């Protein structure tokens, strides 16, 4: 067939050839009317819609509501445990660290009792507190029972199970709902009005893998070159591409607003995250306890344990020497006394 198609002939299926197509990329001439009446208006509509959506989202944003106290407590406990797990743990002596690890990864309830608790305030754990305390005493001899946080990692799941995350879910949904509804409507509209339109061509060749992405809605044109973009795909590309533009156009939120959120959080009120990211205290604490259980004391180097060694450096007494001096400790100590005192006094003299 003719290898030089006339520029005017816009055949979407004009390149159905004998030889393998799309290698010798045929240029399709896209009508300028498409540009004027479809591509640009679509862009404008989407920008307007994005602006509208952000405003609606702001209106629909829930007012901050009190954070459940258990959540707050669990977050705080997690913070505390994470310190132990992180590098700061090395600045505790190994025995104390291990005591904490054992105590905090201890399970307070066995699983059989989990269901029965039924959402008391979390203060019903006097027995549990005793267990925790005992574990702590055995482990490290910390007898600070007045302030042991009653519910450390194993924190009573009975109350956690009923954690009131349901309340927040609806509020968070609202904003998302608005965006979703808008997207669906626009997509339906575009695929209805501009079905089968090829709107633009990207100026570089693409592999066939991109066909799904670029030519959504053009089902029967299996041989069309991949760099042509269909209307629905154009919509998607613009939708994702505009995010950065919106960030630029609308600016960051005011510093005052951000700070306001921080203060509200400090005052125990929260907007609640997106619905997917609800904080599940029981699960988080259990995970943390599992992690703690898996850490081994021997796998860590405790800086406190070697602090003296590093401080003394070469002067640190050698093991061998200690054994030797171990034989004559009884009177060796007396001689050692003289030696060391004379040594130190001679040091002082030297300084003078």
């Amino acid at each position, binding site marked *: 067939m003719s290898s030089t198609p006339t520029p005017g002939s816009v055949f979407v299926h004009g390149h159905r050839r004998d030889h393998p197509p799309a290698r010798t990329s045929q240029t399709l001439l896209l009508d300028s009317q498409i540009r004027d009446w479809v591509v640009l208006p679509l862009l404008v509509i989407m920008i307007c819609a994005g602006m509208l959506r952000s405003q609606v989202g702001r209106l629909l944003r829930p007012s901050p509501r009190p954070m459940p106290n258990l959540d707050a407590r669990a977050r705080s406990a997690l913070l505390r445990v994470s310190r132990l797990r992180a590098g700061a743990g090395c*600045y505790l002596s190994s*025995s104390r660290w291990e005591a904490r690890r054992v105590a905090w990864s201890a399970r307070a309830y066995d699983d059989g009792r989990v269901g029965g608790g039924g959402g008391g305030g979390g203060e019903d754990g006097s027995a549990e507190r005793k267990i925790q305390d005992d574990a702590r005493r055995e482990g490290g001899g910390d007898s600070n029972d007045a*302030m042991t946080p009653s519910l450390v990692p194993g924190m009573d799941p009975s109350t956690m199970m009923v954690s009131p995350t349901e309340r927040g879910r609806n509020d968070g949904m609202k904003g998302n709902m608005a965006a979703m509804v808008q997207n669906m409507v626009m997509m339906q509209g575009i695929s209805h009005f501009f079905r089968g339109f090829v709107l633009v061509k990207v100026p570089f060749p693409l592999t066939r893998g991109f066909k799904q992405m670029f030519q959504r809605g053009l089902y029967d044109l299996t041989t069309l070159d991949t760099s042509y973009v269909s209307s629905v795909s154009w919509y998607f590309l613009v939708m994702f591409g505009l995010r950065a533009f919106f960030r630029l156009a609308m600016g960051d939120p005011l510093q005052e607003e951000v700070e306001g959120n921080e203060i509200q959080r400090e005052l125990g009120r929260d907007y609640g995250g997106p619905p997917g990211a609800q904080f599940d205290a029981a699960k988080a604490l259990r995970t943390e306890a599992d992690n703690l259980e898996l850490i081994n004391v021997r796998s860590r180097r405790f800086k406190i344990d070697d602090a003296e060694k590093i401080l003394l450096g070469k002067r640190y007494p050698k093991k061998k020497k200690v054994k030797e001096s171990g034989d004559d400790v009884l009177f060796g100590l007396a001689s050692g006394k003289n030696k060391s005192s004379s040594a130190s006094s001679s040091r002082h003299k030297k300084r003078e």
Partner: protein
Amino acid sequence: MIGPEDDLPTLIGRNDHINVLRYIRAHKLRKPRTVVFHGRALLGITNDVNDDASSSGTYPPSFPSSSPSSLGDAERLSALEQVFVSALDVGEISLADRCLDDIRIAVVSGGGGDPSSSSSSSSSRYRRLLGMRHESRGEYDDAYALYDEMTNENPSNAHAARRKYCVAHATAATTTAAAGRATAGKGDDNRRADVIAAKTLDDYLRDRPGDVAAWYEMADVCLSTCDYDGAAYCLEEVVLGCPLDSSVHVRLAEAYCTGGGLANAKLGRKHMAMAVRLDPDNLRAWYGLIASAEGYLEEVDRISKSGGKNVGGGGGGNIRDAEGEGIEVARELIMLGGGKLVRVYGGSSKMKSIVERMLKESSEML
């Protein structure tokens, strides 16, 4: 927004009031005088509306306010809040009261509350400021009641819970001082205040085990009741929170050493060594290092003597055997610490002689 190239002197020089305030807030600086000065200029303390309009003419073009002719609500309230706190800080009570009134008019009067009451419907952010004013006037009872109400309303209000303890602590301190002045007749009273404060802190820590500052306070409470194990536990918590702070290590070591016992003495020595490593100029740590090593040697001595008496024969030898290395280390530490101290005080002969005499005593004790 504040650009990355703007720093405080440029902003001040440009008389860019709102961004000065923002910069100070964002960096959490404590510059109350600057804040009060620029806050006055920004808010036009004599006449709100007019001065707002005139001062906002100097905003840099980057200022993204939608209505450049006046401050937005959020900006104005934030500035008022900031100026209020700073005014309390420098003791400009009338200015503080004025800011608080403005905030109340903007925030609370929407619900139609009367000035002094803190109805439960009013904003907790406003009541936080109200509590600050109560505290600044020394009206601890009012402040405590306010914070109590806030925590009852929303138990996860960390700020109110924390301030509640602070107020209780301050009350205890003032009653103690008063009792000290009016002879020791009121001993029960101030003890009760102490207990209330400790209880409040205890409650707070149960809910917020992650708060390092609260653990530090708790360590003080424990020390005041001679509970050295408890203090050590609290200070360990603090060490986990800020592991590179030399002074915390020193305090922890002191708690260990005072608690007594061989294991504690060893731990104390180690933490002192860590403190010295973290900050070689920390003289308290150097003295502490020597003292803790001495304490350890004494402890070994004591055990070996008592063990010798109780068990008879080899008991004393055993402990010395077991602690052979530790004894050596302790001696080395004393020598190292002594050398350092002599070097530090090398400049003044008087101090040097005192230190040397002290060291000689300790080396005789070896």
